[in-house]
């Protein structure tokens, strides 16, 4: 048996109103990739943060190489050889990419920062992850996925013995994920211990050696991957019997769009972000935007919602030509948009769950038609129940929710506005298996029962194939193909993405 690198014993962590961890044990060996699994809010990130000194613990011991250690700050943790990529990317958006990678350990020459070396090494490092970007630009020029790669690049560059990756692949596509895996495997060969957190079961099974399952802050057990079939893992995570879990895989019958057109956008574009795109959305239709990162999926959604104004083309809603110049104009047409970057454009972190949920509704009603508190409470409670959001109370600050639960609050915010067109940009990012299939089903049910239109944007092909009745494929900021009904399959999408001008 390989030697034990890290042992956490009987870890307790209490937050006001919640017991996030109770008596959790965790063991990490050298040369092992160990997955932490559990539903949203199970305590995975908290366990990691206790280890890296972000949070102080309320009980238990941490042994590094058999020696008791208590990193009190993230810096101390780094000095102990623990390198971490947190779930919420914590880089500085107004520093350059290179600065972000080398922050705190800048290469020096004659006592001054050696910018040339720094930029060169940053570029090389990203090259290994096949990210080709200008490292001298500030970080806010790049989308979340790239930021995530940068965070990873930084983490794998410091010589560490333990590497922690908290949902590193949540916004990466297949290829990028594979690149990352190659690097992780290399590091494993060098004897590093790796903690990998993800809600993608396939990735966990592909990459990891062992799995530790948490549920509601409690340890369920640690297992070898090859001895734990997938269904059993899910059952352990959600705490239900095997037969219940098998329902997860069941597909909801897709919705049948009606003839009636809701929104039509012809040849829309915006200088600098989108070249040319056509969409026609019928009532009750679930449309998917497929394509690689930066292919124009999000940009289209943002144009439809009025985040940016179109510079050419036309949008008609319910047969009337519309100028959607700002989000409110779109909201008046009953369009709702869940943005992909939850931290920067989704949550209002210091407001409560209740305030976050009613925010869009209130904005729509205007500031003088205040929604009475009682009604707010009712709406919030309904949403919490509907989406199964894990909160200690509805007045809890959203920043204190687990990542997946924050995502659910944002979805709730828009469902509460009773939209006719719901645009979901990466709605299942960071969401656990159970809820993921709930959200997919919800998209379909809304389309079927309420005749709502849904635009579904996701990097997970599987989920798009499962839910959408029509897929629009984008490449290089323009539409390249449209697939319907039987034609919808991962292979066809891949072909369209890879194929020449079509």
């Amino acid at each position, binding site marked *: 048996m390989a030697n034990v690198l890290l042992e956490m014993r009987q870890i307790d962590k*209490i937050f*006001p*109103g919640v*017991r996030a961890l*109770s*008596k959790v044990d965790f063991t990490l060996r050298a040369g092992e990739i160990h997955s932490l699994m559990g539903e949203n809010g199970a305590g995975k990130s908290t366990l990691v943060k206790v280890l890296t000194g972000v949070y102080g613990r309320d009980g238990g011991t941490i042994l590094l190489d058999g020696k008791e250690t208590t990193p009190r700050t993230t810096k101390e943790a780094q000095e102990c050889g623990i390198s971490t990529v947190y779930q919420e990317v914590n880089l500085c958006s107004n520093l350059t990419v290179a600065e972000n990678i080398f922050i705190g350990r800048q290469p020096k020459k004659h006592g001054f920062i050696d910018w040339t070396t720094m930029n060169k090494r940053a570029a090389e490092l990203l090259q290994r992850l096949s990210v080709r970007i200008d490292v001298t630009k500030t970080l806010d020029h790049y989308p979340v996925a790239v930021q995530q790669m940068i965070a990873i690049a930084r983490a794998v560059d410091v010589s560490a013995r333990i590497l922690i990756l908290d949902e590193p692949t949540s916004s990466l596509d297949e290829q990028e994920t594979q690149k990352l895996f190659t690097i992780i495997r290399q590091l494993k060969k060098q004897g590093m211990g790796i903690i990998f957190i993800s809600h993608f079961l396939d990735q966990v099974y592909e990459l990891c050696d062992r799995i530790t399952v948490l549920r*509601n802050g*409690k340890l369920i057990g640690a297992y070898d991957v090859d001895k734990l079939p997938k269904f059993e893992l899910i059952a352990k995570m959600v705490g239900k019997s095997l037969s219940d879990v098998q329902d997860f895989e069941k597909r909801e019958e897709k919705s049948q769009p009606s003839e009636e057109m809701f929104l039509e956008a012809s040849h829309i574009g915006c200088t600098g972000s989108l070249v040319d795109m056509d969409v026609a959305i019928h009532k009750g239709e679930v449309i998917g935007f497929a394509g690689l990162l930066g292919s124009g999926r999000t940009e289209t959604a943002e144009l439809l919602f009025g*985040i940016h104004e179109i510079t050419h083309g036309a949008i008609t809603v319910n047969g009337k030509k519309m100028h959607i110049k*700002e*989000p*409110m104009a779109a*909201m008046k047409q009953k369009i709702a*948009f869940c*943005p992909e970057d939850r931290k*920067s*454009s*989704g*949550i*209002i*972190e*210091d*407001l409560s769950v209740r*305030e976050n949920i009613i*925010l*869009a509704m*209130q*904005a*729509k*009603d205007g*500031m*003088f038609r*205040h*929604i009475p508190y009682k009604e707010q409470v009712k709406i919030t409670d309904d949403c919490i129940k509907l989406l199964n959001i894990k909160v200690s109370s509805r007045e809890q600050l959203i920043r204190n929710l687990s990542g997946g639960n924050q995502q659910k609050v944002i979805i709730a*915010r828009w469902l509460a506005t009773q939209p006719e067109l719901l645009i979901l940009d990466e709605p299942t990012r960071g969401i656990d298996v159970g809820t993921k299939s709930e959200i997919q089903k919800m998209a379909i049910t809304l389309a079927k029962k309420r005749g709502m239109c849904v635009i579904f944007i996701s990097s997970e092909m599987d989920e798009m194939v499962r839910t959408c009745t029509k897929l629009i494929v984008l490449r290089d900021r323009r539409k390249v193909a449209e697939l319907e009904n039987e034609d919808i399959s991962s292979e066809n999408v891949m072909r369209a993405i890879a194929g020449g001008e079509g």
Partner: protein
Amino acid sequence: MEKLKQFTSSSLFLPIVALAVLLIFNAVFVDGFLHIQLTEDGRLYGRLIDILNRSSSLVILSLGMTFVIATSGIDISVGAVVAISAAVVCTFIGGRGDGIPEHPMVLAMLAAVGAGVVCGIWNGLLVAKFKIQAVVATLILMTAGRGIAQLMTEGQIITVYYKPFSYISGTIPGNILPTTIFIAAAMVLLVVFLMKKTSIGLFVQSVGINPTASRFSGINVTLVIFLVYAFSGLCAGVSGLIESSLIRAADANNAGLNMEMDAILAVALGGTLLSGGKFYIGGSVIGAITIQTLTTTMYALGVSADQLPVVKAIAVIAICLIQSKRCQEIFDKWKARHMQPDNPEEKAVNKA
């Protein structure tokens, strides 16, 4: 116990404690501090009343400032706007020695408040529409404002002899409390009403915390920012009435001098972070009263006017330290150690 716990964790806890400490200090060391008596013409008189009276204009200014700071902005022009408002009201009423006003006083007052609003709109346009940094944008009016006031008064100090003008800062005959207290109370009530019956508070906070996400939620960020500066201008306009009535004159160089700093301080003492976000109207009001109490105390103790800023600075540093994040953390840790959270699941865990 439960109530106490609630109170110690409430946002008003520290501001109230700070004020209470000051009041107790005063009660012990200043003779007749708590004494309130009725004068012959039926007015209440005493140091406490005096403090309330004198703090009114600062209270009003800090109301507007609270909203501005909550959107993570700042308005350093309010002092100058006070001077403008004072100049407007005095020029309208005029300085005729026989005490006859040139225009009706109501009109003059409206004009002064209106001038304040116009100034606020100017700031709002610069910050919200043209996206100039708040400090820089309001600096323009801060420096130019007194010049404008000078122009209006033609470089003179206009002294108003019209009797009713002094009622604004004094007492209307037949009333037992100074008018300023009613004006301040009315403004506070207006804000409380806005907070309770409209969603402006929610929007302001939301914009202050995360403007991008607010925009994505459909909030008109530009409008919200514009409105808070306009409102701050309105508050400064009202304050200008009080300040000018106090000396019955418009003194463009000294009216409202350094009041912007006191207002910002009041907001900070009240627990609102200068980085924006959550704001506490009640805290700001208490903060403003605290600052005035501090000033009054110093005078009562015989601290001379030129030493006053030093003593004030020390007191402010102390109060800010207590409210600092670091202190909060220590306090929270202490609380966590002494007050265990209740754990219904505890037993279930042990069984499992």
